[in-house]
């Protein structure tokens, strides 16, 4: 199920809220776990078994590690077991066909060994989350979870199940065990956050997504330079508002049930460097890799060659995490290389340049990155890049029409990509009218989003791949 659907908003959510709040507190985690299973099963009833399997494995490994450690042993065997099992499941479902396809292409064989498997929704998110649990238990950062219900609640938790943020067990361990968590204020804050996210996804991302779809499906012969730039800018907005809107909805829903998830985005498009961009974009993924890969490899406290290796390993993994395809791999390496260059010398130069230049530089490389990301077929991606850099007429009628049609939207998206609105809300006059204006706006966003969902001709979901 996705949050931005009538089924979720007007059938599933009210039922879960009702059940959750009329139940005695000790049963609430169980209610969440069962509802989450229904939520997951909505789209893919079969793959629910994999998630349950993952839950049981990591719960057991966590317990066994704790038991071994209480006896003075390390419990490493069970940590390795947990990691191997998690990565094998992820590897099989996500990467088997990619690997097999490439190996066979290498040996010139036809695609005989390919399997008809679809990717279980959210598997990239929940395997990372459960792995964080056993690793942290092993590192004694957190005690093993005694209740399998509470652990299942963590793994299956529907608000963050299919598109993150990547919630580490330590993020919510305390709240999960606390039957008295949550408050009316936290609930209300959650609702407001959810509505904001819903609006971002349904009103902003989906609408600008139409422009990207139009540009993307335009035959090369009918493209122009400006049209290609307009298209990739549309994609940049779409992916940001889609993904961060989804994270907002997840964080909001978490709060409604008394759980605090980590933030995932912090105005990435105002970044002054690529290094900064990755501190503001999909923050929970970055911190996951930092904590469980980069630092264990030695991070930056090693000699230069090893440091370079560490960065490249992390970015190779980041790339391939986004999808089993060469373009994602290349996209990851692209960022790895830029970050290396920035670390080695570019940042020192950038620091001396005017702000505007730093911003333009960052946006330019982010947009080029999105071209790599957007085209799974790399020949098309390269052809698109060529058009952006002049391999077509400069401007055509299509570009003018679509630019004018979407200009108001682009301005809104641009403004909302910066913290301007937060600053405005701090000005005295706006502070005064906020108690009236904010609820009115929120309700307007909610109603308009519902209008878009009811007429749901266009409601694509970008993150099924992850």
């Amino acid at each position, binding site marked *: *199920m996705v949050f931005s*659907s*009538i*089924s979720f*908003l*007007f*059938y599933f*959510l*009210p*039922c879960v*809220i*009702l059940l959750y709040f009329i139940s005695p507190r000790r049963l609430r985690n169980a209610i969440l776990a069962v509802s989450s299973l229904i939520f997951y099963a*909505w*789209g*893919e*009833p*079969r793959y629910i078994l994999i998630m349950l399997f993952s839950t049981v494995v990591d719960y057991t490994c966590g317990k066994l590690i704790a038991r071994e450690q209480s006896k003075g042993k390390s419990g490493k065997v069970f940590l390795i077991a947990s990691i191997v099992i998690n990565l094998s499941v992820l590897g099989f479902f996500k990467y088997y066909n990619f690997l097999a396809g490439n190996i066979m292409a290498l040996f010139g064989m036809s695609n005989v060994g390919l399997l008809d498997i679809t990717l279980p929704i959210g598997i990239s998110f929940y395997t990372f989350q459960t792995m964080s649990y056993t690793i942290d238990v092993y590192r004694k950062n957190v005690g093993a979870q005694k209740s399998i219900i509470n652990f299942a609640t963590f793994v299956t938790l529907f608000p963050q199940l299919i598109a993150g943020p990547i919630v580490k067990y330590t993020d919510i361990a305390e709240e999960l065990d606390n039957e008295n968590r949550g408050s*009316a*204020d936290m*609930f*209300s*804050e*959650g*609702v*407001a956050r959810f*509505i904001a996210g819903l609006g971002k996804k349904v009103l902003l991302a989906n*609408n600008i997504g139409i422009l990207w779809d139009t540009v993307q499906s335009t035959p090369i012969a009918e493209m122009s330079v400006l049209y290609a730039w307009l298209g990739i800018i549309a994609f940049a907005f779409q992916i940001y508002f889609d993904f961060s809107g989804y994270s907002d909805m997840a964080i909001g829903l978490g709060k409604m049930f008394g759980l605090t998830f980590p933030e995932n985005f912090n105005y990435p498009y105002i970044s002054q460097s690529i290094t900064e961009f990755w501190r503001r974009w999909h923050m929970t993924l970055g911190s996951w890799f930092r904590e469980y890969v980069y630092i264990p490899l030695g991070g930056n406290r090693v000699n230069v060659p090893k440091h370079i290796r560490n960065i490249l390993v992390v970015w190779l993994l980041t790339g391939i995490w986004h999808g089993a395809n060469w373009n994602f791999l290349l996209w990851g390496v692209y960022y790895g290389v830029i970050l290396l260059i920035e670390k080695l010398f570019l940042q020192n130069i950038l620091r001396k340049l005017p702000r505007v230049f730093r911003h333009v530089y960052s946006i330019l490389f982010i947009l080029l990155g999105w071209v790599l990301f957007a085209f799974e077929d790399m020949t098309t991606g390269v052809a698109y890049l060529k058009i952006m850099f002049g391999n077509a007429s400069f401007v055509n*009628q*299509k*570009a*003018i*029409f*679509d630019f*004018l*049609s*979407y*200009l*108001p*939207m682009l301005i*809104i998206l641009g403004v909302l990509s910066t913290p301007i609105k937060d600053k405005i809300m701090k000005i005295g006059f706006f502070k005064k009218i*906020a*108690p009236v204006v*904010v*609820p009115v706006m*929120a*309700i307007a966003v*909610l*109603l*308009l989003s*519902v*209008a*878009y*969902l*009811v*007429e*749901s*001709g266009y409601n694509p979901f970008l993150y099924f791949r992850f």
Partner: protein
Amino acid sequence: MKNSNRIIAGIFIIFLFLSLVVNIVLPDNLYSESEKRELDQMPDFTLDTVISGDFTSKFDKYASDQFFGRDTWVFAKGLSQYLIGQKKLNGVYITEDRYIRELVVNKERLENNLDAILKLAEKSGKPVTLLVVPEASTIYEDNLPLGETSKENHVIDRVYEKLGGKINIVYPKDILQENKDEYIYFNGDHHWTMKGAYYAYSQMMGTDKAYNFITVAGDFKGTMVTKAGVKLPWIPLDKIEVPEEITNDYFAISVNRDGSDADGEMFYPEFLGEFDKYRYFQGGDQPLMAIGSVGKGASFVLKDSFANVMLPYLALDNEVTYVADTRYNRQSPSEYAKTMNVDEIILIYSPDSLCNEFSLVNLGN
């Protein structure tokens, strides 16, 4: 902040639960008049449908199709898109004073259809006339948003290149453009009006018979308004205007559906009270008709719905006019023309049909 959050949360919860109750209590609709389609119904809930995922995917469609006040929500969406600068919604340009269908050119299908027309001319051995009815986007091209043009030129170029000299081509763009300030195209429907068809007819036949047009119905909400999803209050609803002089008394019509004949009419006043008032003409598209009238000779008309307002003029000139629609009638047109021993074949199509209607390949059968 805390207080405004509480207000938001309160309204949100009330809205969610009220909607849940209203959606359950309100009876489900079978059909949407405004969208002209059957609405999805509650799917069967069985173990099989649930496991296969069939239930859930159908339930999602059901939930949005049967959401209370659906038409109002759809309107709200369309209006917001229009206000934010979208001048083309769902393939319909919304201009200052009319809704205009965007012509999507499918080059490959166009070529196949033109080939089929050539084949028809060869196989039948009859004189063939093709009347291409200009799209509203051509006649009112000036109204299109900046940067957009009608793509009809390509179609017309191909028609003349491929069929010129082999069949008779009538393309009444100029005469319609000269009279574009008259009511020759609907504001909210893609069709031309009976007055528009009159100008084409007078050019085609070289007559200047004068008619007195009267209004037989107003409040016609055209297909393009529905397709765009937003009825703007400042663009008036359409009306149906017909020549006073042409009445049902001039025609004896037999309609053939699935092999059995029934009596038909040229004009159906009962449809003027219905949603789709364009069905006033012959009751909508019919698979096969034979229209007897007061003129001389026999013609065979193959057509799309643009011809429906043209038929009254054409049929009057003939003793019998056979009319077929390839969408609902698969028999060979050339055979039929020979069997019925007609004097000529007239094809009436919009560029949209020439580019996108796959059944036109049957013309060559």
